[in-house]
């Protein structure tokens, strides 16, 4: 309780509310039939629990769906979803399968709680007849010890993220893997190796630990440049929901996994990271590339890069992130600042038919449709099913990029912004805050401050605006709410952008 009195909690919260409560980030949407992005429900066959753990497409264009307890299904997409003919590639109940990678029409990799499994259809009848265990994952017995991935490393191998256990679950008398009483303590814990790690697997080297310090990394993806990205969930040692750029060997802030790092316990077999001073842990950790405002994102899941070359609208190359506890898909605008990948987040799609619980996503082979699979067990209630978002064309008016400048930001738009709108600093109300690294379960935005640009400078073509602020500092999130901006055809679709400044622009 003591540590809370140091936070101006109510102030932070009320500021937060004032930024969001007034609008749902969206100004007067266009009539439904004209909207560029539209959601469609895709019914699954009876007897299938539509809790989607993984999505992909086969080379022949079949959608592959792995469910968390009713096996693997395939169907060729149809314009009318109800006409899709589903077949069962596997009718087995895999253990909470939460990720897949399609090798071919006859072979897929699926992660389930105890292992990475290769499902192979040898005789070509459309049904897997071999379940080959490629790698085993340890389990203490908690429901929370799920997987994310596999995602390819570009060189024949794969990355898989392993969740920690939660204290809301339990530990078994006989654990799968060596039990460590030291790392059994904790709100979320890693009492068997390698919970809380991102693992690497390839057939030659087997399963090896790659990076540590994760809590509930329910989203993993490799980018077109080979960079590895992981989302994690707010909780202990996670003041809000982060997106991490993951590099080999680094530590990402949740300490329980450290007991399985030979370097960390060298000469100190009983070293307890939970007893290590926060300042030391803070100095060891790699910060998040993006800190999602809590509430805007409640439980980020799979990131996915738009590599459709414009088939899915103007956001080619950018990352979308599913959110499993809000009816929302987030868009992330990344950039390299002083050798650090960081950037901003903005709403891509929310409400308007999209279900809560979005967990996994994949693009259709032609790039015009984003398939979204939903599931969210336990605390967030039932939110499960399969949907797709179609890009119908037509004008899109959004923030396209947000670039950090030495003294502010440059915002780029997908269409020219009408003169007479966005002219004044009041159109760019900004609040800045940080998230203090804390062992506690979540936490408020700290040291919040309200500001606005001192100067607003539009480009000749009205597609870019430079916002100059009186003061810029690192270790801040700057959240800008844009008001009144219009294009020739419509008001700005999503009006809140939040940029995480780890490094200032030089």
């Amino acid at each position, binding site marked *: 309780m003591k540590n*809370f009195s140091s936070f101006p909690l*109510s102030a932070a919260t009320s500021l937060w509310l004032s930024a969001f409560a007034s609008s749902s980030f969206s100004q007067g949407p266009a009539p439904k039939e004209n909207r560029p992005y539209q959601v469609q429900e895709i019914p699954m066959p009876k007897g299938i629990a*539509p809790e989607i753990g993984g999505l992909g497409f086969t080379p022949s264009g079949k959608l592959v769906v792995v469910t968390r307890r009713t096996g693997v299904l395939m169907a060729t997409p149809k314009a009318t979803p109800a006409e899709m003919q589903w077949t069962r590639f596997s009718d087995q109940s895999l253990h909470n399968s939460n990720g897949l990678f399609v090798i071919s029409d006859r072979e897929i990799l699926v992660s389930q709680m105890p292992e990475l499994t290769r499902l192979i259809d040898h005789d070509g009848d459309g049904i897997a007849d071999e379940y080959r265990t490629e790698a085993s994952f340890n389990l203490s017995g908690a429901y929370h010890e799920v997987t994310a991935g596999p995602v390819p490393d570009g060189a024949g191998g794969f990355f898989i993220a392993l969740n920690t256990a939660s204290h809301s679950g339990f530990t078994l008398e*006989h654990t799968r893997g060596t039990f460590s009483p030291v790392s059994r303590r904790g709100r979320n814990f890693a009492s068997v190796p390698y919970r809380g790690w991102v693992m690497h697997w390839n057939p030659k080297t087997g399963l090896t630990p790659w990076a540590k310090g994760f809590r509930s990394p329910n989203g993993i993806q490799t980018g077109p440049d080979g960079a590895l990205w992981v989302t994690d969930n707010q909780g202990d040692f996670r003041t809000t929901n982060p997106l991490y750029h993951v590099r080999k060997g680094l530590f990402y802030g949740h300490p329980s996994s450290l007991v399985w790092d030979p370097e960390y316990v060298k000469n100190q077999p009983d070293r307890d990271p939970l007893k290590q001073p926060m300042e030391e842990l803070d100095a060891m950790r790699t910060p998040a590339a993006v800190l999602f405002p809590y509430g805007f994102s409640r439980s980020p899941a799979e990131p996915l890069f738009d590599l459709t070359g414009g088939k899915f609208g103007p956001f080619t190359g950018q990352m979308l992130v599913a959110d499993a506890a809000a009816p929302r898909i987030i868009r992330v605008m990344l950039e390299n600042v002083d050798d650090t990948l960081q950037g901003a987040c903005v709403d891509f799609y929310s409400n308007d038919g999209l279900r809560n619980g979005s967990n996994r996503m994949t693009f259709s082979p032609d790039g015009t449709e984003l398939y979204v699979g939903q599931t969210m067990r336990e605390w967030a209630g039932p939110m499960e099913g399969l949907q797709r978002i179609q890009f119908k064309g037509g004008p899109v008016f959004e923030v396209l990029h947000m670039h950090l400048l030495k003294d502010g930001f440059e915002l780029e738009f997908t269409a020219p912004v009408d003169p007479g709108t966005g002219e004044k600093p009041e159109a760019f109300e900004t609040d800045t805050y940080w998230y203090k690294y804390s062992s506690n379960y979540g936490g408020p935005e700290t040291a919040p401050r309200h500001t606005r640009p001192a100067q607003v400078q539009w480009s000749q073509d009205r597609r870019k605006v430079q916002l100059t602020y009186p003061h810029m500092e690192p270790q801040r999130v700057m959240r800008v709410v844009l008001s009144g901006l219009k294009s020739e055809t419509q008001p700005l679709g999503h009006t809140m952008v939040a940029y995480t400044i780890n490094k200032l622009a030089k």
Partner: protein
Amino acid sequence: MNSLPCFLTLLTLAPAILHPAAALAQAPAKGEPAKVSMKVLPGLIKFETTRFDVTAGAPVELTFSNDCVMPHNLILLKPEAEPAVIAAVNTMGLEGMEKHFVPDVPGIIAATKLLAPTQKEILTFNSPSQEGEYPYVCTFPGHWFTMRGVMRVRAAGAKLESPQKSGEKVVKVEDALKNSGISHTPLGTFEKPFVMRTFAPDPNLDPAVFKNHGVGKDAVKYDPATRLDITQAEKDPTTGVERQVPVVRKAEKGVAGAIAVNHGPEFSYVWDSTECRLLYAWRGGFLDMNSYWGKEPGAFRPKMYIPLLMGYLVYRASGAMPLAESADPAPLFLGYRMLHTGPEFRYQIGTRIYRESILPSITDGFKVKVTQESGPAALTWNVSPADTASVKVQPEKEGLLVSFKDRPEPPQSPPAQPSEPKSKKP
């Protein structure tokens, strides 16, 4: 006073035309409580009403209906109490569910229980005599950031404004799981067995069969806010002196890497991918998954996740792994192929690779068929001392056929489930 309930009913039916608030703006009849209707924006973790006014020192009747798919409560607080209340909630851990996330700290004016979806609760209380802004929040973990509002207490005679509503609209989407028609007691058939990877029950097996497992220990509960273990007061049974003792979470029984196979009501077994051996077999049903998957599709999903064994055991493994010698390394599970008889498991012990199928009989007993795919040494099945009377080993082409007679046991009473939050009965 007679007209008031009718009036409210009318308003509820036509909320778009008239605000229920309109009634509140006028002081209720003398002695009648001011009625407040509080709803949830389903899925958005927000109260529908974000502000309402009451008169100081007057009775209030607040009806909180949870139309969301998540559990929620409503806690009305004194103006400065929130940081301490939220801090206390954050330290409640497992007790949170049991105590409805209502901590035992000062500053709480009124609180509902943790309401499951579709439940409602009526709170009656006297509004504070002090004018001011009194926040209300849902303290279910993660909800208080967004699920909040404020009760404004106004001086007697002051004008009460209409409640303020959140502007967000909720688009209803289908509960696809609720409509999926899946069974929580899945079954295969004798001819076409059903394979399930799951946490499986451990029906008090001989600990020797878990040779290659870690030894899970009871653990002391821990508070992330203070980074300390959680203790509670307890009276020493002999001296009667109160002392602080750690709150312990017991290790539980279960099998983590299990493969459960069902041949219909006639026969089921659990084969373990860690020990690479048959652990137990039973007849009369398969697994009741309600404790893992929730009582009904669409209901709040529980966190108790070891399914219950239905029927009666006919075999329990004991002793050392029958194919392993004492110097052997831990077995390595390689996967399985689906044959018409069911899965054929494949595993490696040292340099030896084995294939193993379980072949049940409808009426009595089952056979374990083992072939050695590669590696040195002849196949030897070391019969566990407990199995000598009921097990017969005979050589087969490239392997062994081990016949087991049923050893029926009385049906087990359902094992006491771990002391989990009683989420379905808040």
